[in-house]
């Protein structure tokens, strides 16, 4: 299994590399269409979130597995001011500092799992996972299995 890739995010031009690397890793891990595009779009949003709110940070891409499934994990890490109200940040109508309120809730809908850890001292880490499913039916079965 391949190693992680870290992409420094310091300016909006760095989003281009982040999207390209995310797509390339999704392709290498065997994600079917349209998943590489969904992943690249979600990465674009969390990377932009870094540029807008923290100025600098990094995107970490790596394969993941949980014994049954394989997937890709994306972490967006910054040491910025933190997100005061995480619940609000992933709500559809929220737009802090004139930012793109759509970004985080949109990214969450494109991925299978989405978590935010944030505080004023250490900054923000967004962790997203996408599991490799053959098709939508397999995805629904997996959701049911996980709910028990």
């Amino acid at each position, binding site marked *: 299994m391949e190693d992680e890739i870290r992409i420094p995010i310091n300016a*909006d031009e760095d989003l281009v590399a982040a999207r390209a690397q995310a797509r390339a890793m999704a392709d290498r891990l065997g994600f079917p269409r349209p998943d590489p*595009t969904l992943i690249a779009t979600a990465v674009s949003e969390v990377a932009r979130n870094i540029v807008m709110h923290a100025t600098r940070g990094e995107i970490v891409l790596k394969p993941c597995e949980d014994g049954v499934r394989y997937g890709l994990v994306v972490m967006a890490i910054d040491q910025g001011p933190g997100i005061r109200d995480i619940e609000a940040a992933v709500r559809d109508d929220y737009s802090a500092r004139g930012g793109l309120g759509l970004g985080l809730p949109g990214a969450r809908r494109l991925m299978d799992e989405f978590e935010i850890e944030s505080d004023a001292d250490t900054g923000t880490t967004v962790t997203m996972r996408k599991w490799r499913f053959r098709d939508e039916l397999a995805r629904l079965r997996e959701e049911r299995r996980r709910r028990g």
Partner: protein
Amino acid sequence: MSVAILRQGAYLIASVQSDLSDTEVMWLRQELAERIGKYRSRGIVIDVATLDVIDSFVARALSAIVLTAKLRGAETVIVGIHPDVAIAMVQFRLNLQPLRVVLDLDEATALLDRLTRRDQKDGG
């Protein structure tokens, strides 16, 4: 630069060549608004066939270009959204209401012909 703007009669055709940075998206918006006046363009075609991600920033910028062009007297048609990108945009729930979208360049110019002819009739 990964955007080229060509002039074809009364229309401007903007072709996006690859992945766009945010700066290039903003350049495109500014440049189109200026060239509409310079060339008296009645219509704009934005070809996004090679664009492999349309995220919230690009979607908003496209909507902004449509509205800016309208205030400058031109109609805009978007061409060639990749099927995977279309799926992502729907799942993202991007608001795409201002966008007029067709599949290829011929359809785009045909639609612009209809739209700008109707405008002229309404105006006169």
